[in-house]
């Protein structure tokens, strides 16, 4: 990711995102120093493959974005930037995307990156035999990939799909060497070859992943670091201790409470530009939560400021919707359900809920989910409801949400570069991530319309409308946007966390 001064200023002033990069001003004047090793702490290494086509684990993506480049890149405010694609044009009423590629780029095995390589990359993901984790996402969309010239490639789509660029800034856009993939076959996942700034040197699963500088990287002079090492740590807090003594340079997944442990002489806490969206979800198509009055009553019983205070030291943002402020598709929050136990009790009476029936609230074991469950349980008990907290292991949690065997529970999602990514996925009656059973023809229509136009202002309006409906019908109780931190050694220069939380270190360097 590029953090130059222009983007910094854009992000801080125009978008007023809370950035904490105290060193950035002085860092800009320092000359980058080449060499050195940057060590990244990885909690519970879950990496299984380095093949982007097959990757599922979040941990893998921490490494993949260093080994490979994407066609499109995301900026700090989620705006899309060129990467392997130098520029693009949208034609045929939004059904054809024409990409002009960077020239002279070579894969780490010396083979050229060109239009044919892009075509192979996408077609390989569509191939049934490859079992790509992105197949389901791309298959309905892509009609054909056309090589216009060696440096121009066109994507013909079955329908308008403005989310394509955002998808190509994520896993689906990571370009791997076709030659190497054919050569290694099944073993490609252990022998990754991309165009990225770093190459895989050593990978001891569960212990460390060592990457070395790619000396032939196509952006001349980059990267500055000689190597990047991912080291497994038992917990983020223990990783943080190791940042303090200089064993680790970057440790993510920290909350505001943990940042109290930081010694500013050695370590800086950097806030992620966009915090995760926390909510409570339930199944609205069956008892008991098909009772809209009951849902509203519970929503009014929740004191979100208190949750923010306790969970995020007041550093989160109350969410009256799904989209944080400061993105192109944000719309101003309309005041949602206010905290009012009296109103909640009145609605509860109207709902006809039998007060002696207990409500089960599922408490996943992960720390922030667990705390949310306990606080919410306490608050809805205060309006007279009987609440059972039922623990569920984090490893089983999402699978059980999908099976609908877990009903009322906290959930959280990272924002996406394109609103379609989360809105359609969660709220459309046919969305693949619709686990609430929510189905509203008006919302479906708005979401389909949102897919069919490319004008950003118009689209922002549509998603704003959906957001308002969601606040009224409460398929999710929107809680807040969290405050997530990365602890970074004071020796690290020219780096800040990205909104998608995958680190890019090609322009980072380490002071002596």
């Amino acid at each position, binding site marked *: 990711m590029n953090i130059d001064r222009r983007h910094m200023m854009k992000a801080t002033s125009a978008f007023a995102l809370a950035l904490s990069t105290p060193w950035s001003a002085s860092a800009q004047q320092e000359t980058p120093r080449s060499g050195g090793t940057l060590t990244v702490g990885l909690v519970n290494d879950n990496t299984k493959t380095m093949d982007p086509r097959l990757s599922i684990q979040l941990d893998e993506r921490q490494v993949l974005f260093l080994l490979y480049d994407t066609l499109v890149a995301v900026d700090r405010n989620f705006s899309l930037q060129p990467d392997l694609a130098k520029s693009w044009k949208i034609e045929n009423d939004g059904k054809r995307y024409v990409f002009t590629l960077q020239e002279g780029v070579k894969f780490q095995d010396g083979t050229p990156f060109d239009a044919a390589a892009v075509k192979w990359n996408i077609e390989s993901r569509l191939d049934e035999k490859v079992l790509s984790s992105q197949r389901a996402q791309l298959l309905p969309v892509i009609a054909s990939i056309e090589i216009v010239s060696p440096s121009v490639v066109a994507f013909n789509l079955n329908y308008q799909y403005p989310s394509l660029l955002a998808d190509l800034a994520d896993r689906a856009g990571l370009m791997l060497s076709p030659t190497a993939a054919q050569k290694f076959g099944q073993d490609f996942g252990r022998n990754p070859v991309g165009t990225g700034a770093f190459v895989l040197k050593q990978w001891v699963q569960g212990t460390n992943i060592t990457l070395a500088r790619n000396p032939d990287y196509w952006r001349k002079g980059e990267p500055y670091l000689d190597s990047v090492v991912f080291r497994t740590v038992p*917990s983020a*807090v223990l990783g943080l*201790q190791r940042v303090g003594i200089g064993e680790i340079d970057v440790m993510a997944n920290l909350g505001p*409470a*943990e940042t*109290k*442990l930081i010694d500013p002489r050695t370590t800086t806490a950097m806030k992620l530009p966009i915090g995760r969206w926390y909510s409570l979800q339930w199944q609205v198509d069956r008892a008991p939560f098909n009772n809209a009055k009951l849902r509203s009553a519970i929503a009014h019983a929740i004191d979100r400021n*208190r949750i923010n*205070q*306790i969970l995020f*030291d007041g550093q989160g943002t109350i969410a009256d919707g799904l989209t944080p402020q400061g993105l192109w598709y944000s719309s101003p929050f309309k005041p949602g359900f206010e905290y009012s136990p009296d109103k909640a009790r009145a609605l509860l009476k109207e709902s006809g809920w039998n007060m002696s029936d207990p409500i089960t609230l599922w*408490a996943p*074991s992960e*720390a922030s989910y*667990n*705390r949310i*469950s*306990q*606080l919410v*349980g*306490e608050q809805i008990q205060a309006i007279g409801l009987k609440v059972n*907290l*039922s*623990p569920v*292991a984090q490893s089983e949690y999402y699978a059980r949400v999908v099976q609908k065997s877990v009903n009322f529970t906290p959930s959280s999602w990272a924002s996406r570069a394109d609103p379609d990514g989360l809105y359609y996925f969660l709220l459309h009656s046919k969305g693949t991530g619709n686990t609430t059973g929510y189905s509203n023809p008006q919302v479906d229509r708005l979401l389909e319309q949102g897919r069919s136009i490319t004008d950003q202002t118009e689209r922002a309006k549509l998603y704003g409308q959906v957001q308002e409906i969601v606040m009224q019908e409460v398929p999710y109780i929107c809680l807040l946007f969290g405050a997530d931190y990365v602890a970074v050694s004071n020796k690290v220069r020219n780096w800040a966390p990205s909104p998608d939380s995958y680190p890019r270190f090609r322009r980072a360097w380490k002071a002596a």
Partner: protein
Amino acid sequence: MSGRLFQRWLGLSLVAAIVLVAILAPWLAPYDPNMSSGSVLSRPSAANIIGTDQLGRDVFSRLLYGARVSLVIGLAASLVGMVIGVPIGLVSGYVGGKADLAVVQVVDILISLPAIVMALIITAVVGASVTNLILILGILKWPIIARIVRGQVLVLREQAFVEAARSIGCTTTRILARHIAPNIMRVLGAQFAIATSTSIFTAASLSFLGLGLPPPAADWGGMVQSGFDYMFLNPLLTLAPGAAVTLTVLSFYLIGESAK
């Protein structure tokens, strides 16, 4: 005072003190143990003498209420162990023969299984609640109790007074209940105390491993675990509940050892 007597009195007075704390918790605790507050992870102060946890709850209040959870689970679990183990041990030891052989085999197999691993597996399957934990820990305790009772009975049944009872036509039930059981009471008492101490320890270990009582229950093992990450901010978050477990386990153990 002999060492053994001192042990017993020390154990008994500690247990009495812990029981008193458990009973008086609502009056002793300065706060509601499950009530969150805005001051999260505060260090020890006059208002919160041990500090507050991740949800701003007063750790001292939770520590006092935690005594209830530990005692109830520990005592009830060893009672369950007794109720199952004593009759089996009595009958197996007294009757002997094939029945005895079968019991001994089963007991040996069960004892060879590591208790904490078994408890982990069963809790993971059936889920943790006070009742479940009591049953699980009790079921894990009975083989040891049965084996000890059987051993005692094997010695007692050859004694002259048992033979005398048998010769005047006492029924087996009567001999077991009136002549043998009273003579193993002392051993049973010791075993009860030791079973309680190990049950409290196992329950705390389960909580520490994340399979304890569901939130927001104040239980010591869970408190040790959740305070772990904040050791460097406030070591008492994890040391205080840790010390409480140790003290309780130790006091029951002292009673048990002194009565052997």
